[in-house]
C-alpha cells in the first residue's frame, strides 16, 4: 500500500518534471504544423542481412546518406530471417524516438500484423528494395527495383547471347524461393523467353542466396544434362560466379560453351564480364537511400499522393562491350 503510493508520487513527480522540461524547450510552432527536417528523423532500418555485394552497397548507401543528412539511423541486420525482422519491427514500434521504419523484406508475406501495429503507433513505414504482398495502405510507399522488368531484360540478354549457339537450353539458378527478387526475376524471364525459343531445362532455388548451394546445383545440372546446356540464368552475381566455377570444373568454358547471365552488376560481376565469362549483367540499383529518406520526410510532413511504388532507374551491361570499356565503367561504379 505504502509502496504503491510512494511509487505513484514518484511517477507524478517524474511526469510533471518531464512536462516542465517539454514546455521549457517547446517551440512556438504548434505540434500539428511542425515542419520536419532530416535532423528530426530517427530511422529504424531493418535490413535483410549481408548476403551479397549488392546488399553491402545498399546498407552503406543508408549509412552514408544518413551521415550527410544528419539523420539518426538505427540498424538491424536480420540475418535473412523473417522472425528477426518481426522482432526488430516490434522494437522500433516500442521505441518512442523512432519515427520512421524502413524495411527490406526477407519474404513476400508475413508482415501484415506488424505493419498494422506500426500504423497504429503512428510510425512512417517505407518499404525498400523488396516488394511485399501486404496492402499498400499499410505503408507509405515502396521504393525498389522492378524485378519483373529485370527478368524481361535477362531473357532478352540471354537471347542475344544465345544467337549462333547450337540450341537454347537454359538452366536457372534461382535466389531464395521466398524473395520477391527471385520470384519476379523467374516470372519476368518466362514472360519473354519464347522470343528466341528458350527451353528451361531445370530450375532450382538456392536458399538464402547461398553460392555454395548454387554451385552444387550447377554441378548436378552439368551431369544431368551433359552437353545439352547452352545458358545459365542466375538470379544474382554471386550465384552466376558459382556457376562459372562449376562450368570451369566440367572442362567447359563459360562465355564460349555456356553463356551466363547474372543480376545486380556489382564490381565482382564486372570483373567476370571483363574476363568474358559472365555474358551479361542486369543492373539492380542498391543506392536507394536518398529516395527512401526523401519519401519518409514527405510522409512525416503529411505529403500525400505518393505512388504505391516508385521504381528505380537501372541499366544493363554485357561482356560484348569489351574489356576496356567495362573497366572504364567500373571505375565510376560505387558498388
Amino acid at each position, binding site marked *: 500500500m505504502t509502496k504503491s503510493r510512494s511509487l505513484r508520487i514518484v511517477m507524478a513527480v517524474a511526469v510533471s518534471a518531464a512536462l516542465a522540461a517539454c514546455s521549457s524547450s517547446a517551440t512556438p510552432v504548434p505540434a500539428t504544423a511542425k515542419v520536419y527536417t532530416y535532423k528530426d528523423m530517427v530511422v529504424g532500418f531493418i535490413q535483410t*542481412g*549481408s*548476403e*551479397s*555485394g549488392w546488399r*553491402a552497397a545498399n*546498407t*552503406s548507401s543508408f549509412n552514408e546518406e544518413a551521415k550527410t543528412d544528419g539523420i539518426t539511423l538505427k540498424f538491424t*541486420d536480420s*540475418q*535473412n530471417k523473417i522472425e528477426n525482422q518481426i522482432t526488430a519491427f516490434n522494437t522500433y514500434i516500442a521505441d518512442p524516438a523512432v519515427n520512421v521504419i524502413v524495411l527490406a523484406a526477407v519474404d513476400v508475406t508475413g508482415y501484415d500484423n506488424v505493419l498494422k501495429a506500426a500504423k497504429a503507433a503512428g510510425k512512417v513505414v517505407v518499404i525498400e528494395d523488396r516488394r511485399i504482398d501486404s496492402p499498400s495502405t499499410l505503408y507509405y510507399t515502396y521504393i525498389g527495383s522492378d524485378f519483373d522488368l529485370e527478368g524481361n531484360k535477362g531473357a532478352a540478354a540471354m537471347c542475344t547471347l544465345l544467337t549462333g549457339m547450337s540450341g537454347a537450353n537454359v538452366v536457372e539458378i534461382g535466389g531464395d*524461393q521466398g524473395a520477391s527478387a527471385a520470384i519476379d526475376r523467374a516470372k519476368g524471364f518466362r514472360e519473354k523467353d519464347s522470343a528466341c525459343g528458350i527451353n528451361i531445362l*531445370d530450375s*532450382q*532455388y*538456392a*536458399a*538464402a*542466396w*547461398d*553460392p*555454395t*548451394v548454387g*554451385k*552444387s*546445383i550447377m*554441378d*548436378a545440372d552439368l*551431369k*544431368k544434362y*551433359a552437353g545439352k546446356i547452352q545458358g545459365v540464368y542466375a538470379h544474382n552475381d*554471386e550465384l552466376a*560466379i*558459382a556457376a562459372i*566455377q562449376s562450368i*570451369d*570444373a*566440367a*572442362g567447359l568454358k563459360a562465355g564460349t560453351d555456356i553463356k551466363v547471365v547474372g543480376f545486380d552488376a556489382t*564490381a*565482382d560481376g*564486372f*570483373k567476370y564480364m*571483363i*574476363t568474358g565469362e559472365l555474358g551479361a549483367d542486369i543492373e539492380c540499383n542498391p543506392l536507394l537511400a536518398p529516395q527512401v529518406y526523401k519519401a519518409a520526410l514527405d510522409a512525416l510532413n503529411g505529403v500525400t499522393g505518393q505512388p504505391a511504388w516508385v521504381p528505380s532507374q537501372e541499366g544493363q551491361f554485357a561482356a560484348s562491350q569489351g574489356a576496356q570499356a567495362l*573497366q572504364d565503367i*567500373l*571505375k565510376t*561504379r*560505387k558498388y
Partner: protein
Amino acid sequence: MNGSFSRTWSKLTESMLFLPTAALLLILIADFFLIPGFFNIEIKQGHLYGSLIDILLHGSPTMILAMGMTLVIATGGVDLSVGAIIAISSSVAAIMINPTIVGMNLTDPRLFINNPQYTWAPLWLVFVVPLVIATLCGLWNGMLVSYWRIQPMVATLVLMIAGRGIAQLITNAIQIIIFNDTFAFIGNGYYLFPFSLYVAAVVFVGAWLLTRRTSIGLFVESVGINYRSSFYSGINERRVKLFAYAFCGFCAGIAGLIIASNIRTSDANQIGMYTELDAILAVVIGGTLLGAGGRFSLMGSAIGALVLQATLTSMLSFGVPASAITAVKALVVVVVILLYAEQTQTFLRGVGKVSLRQEATR
C-alpha cells in the same frame, strides 16, 4: 556353412563400420537404379569428373570437420562453433588476399583481374594465419570446457553466435571474391582426384596416427568414459580436452579455407552455415556415441560424412528442390538413429544368433 555365415554376420554387424558402410551402399544402390548416368566417370582436362567425384569433392570439408568433431565427441563433449570458425578462417584468408575490396577502393581493379596470382599478403601466410586463428578459437572453447567447467554445448554456443559476427566485422560484411588462382586450387584443383580429398586424407591419417599410434587416443576415450577416474589414474584430462577442442578448431580452419576456395568467395553470413550439424551428424552416423563419450571411429566418421554428401548430391541429381533437401536429410537422421537404437541392434545380432541356434539343434 551356416555357422560360418552367422559368425561372419555377427562379426560384421558388431563392427563399428557396418552401419555407415551399409548406409552409403544403400544410397549408391538407389542412385544406380534411379539416376541414369550417376556412376559415369569421365576424364576431363586430365582429371576425373562425375557425380561420384562430386561427392568426394564436396564431402571432403565435412570429412575434415568430422575428424575434429569425433575427438571432441569422444571426450564426451560437442562443438557447435565449427560453422562460425569456418566463417572466421575464410574471412581472414580472403581479406589477406584482397584487403582493397573491403575499403570499397575500386580505383584500380585491374590489379587482381589481370594478375591471377595477385595477393596482398604472401600466400603461405594466407594459409597459416587463418589456421592459427582457427586453432586459437578451438583453444578458447577448450579452455571454457576444461578449465571453467562450462557445459560443452553452452561453451561452444558462445563462439557459434559470436563467431559469425566477428567474421562480418573482419570483412566489413562484404563478400570478397577470391581471384587468386593458387588459393582457388585447394578447393577446385585436381591431381586426378580433387585436391581437397588429399587434404582430407592427410588430416585423417594425421588424426589416426595421433590417436592410434600414440596414447592420446586412449586418453581421449578414457576421459570420455569417466573424466574423474581418468584424473585419478594420472591423466591430465584438462589437457586432453584442450587438445581435442583445439584440433577441432584447426580442422574447421582447414575446412573454411577449402570451402572459400571452392566458391572463390568469403561470405561471412552464409559460409559454413549449419556445418556444425553436418559434422555432428557424420560422427553419429559413423557410430561414435553423442553425449556418452568413449569409443570412437575416425573411419566411421569419414564414411558418415560421405553418407551425408551422397544424400545431398543424389537428391540434387534426382531433381529434388534444394530447399526440400533438409527434409530428406532429416529422414536420413531418423533412420540412422533408429538403426543405432538398442532394439534394432538386438534384432541385427538376433539374425546371426538364430542361425547359430539352428546349427546347434542339428
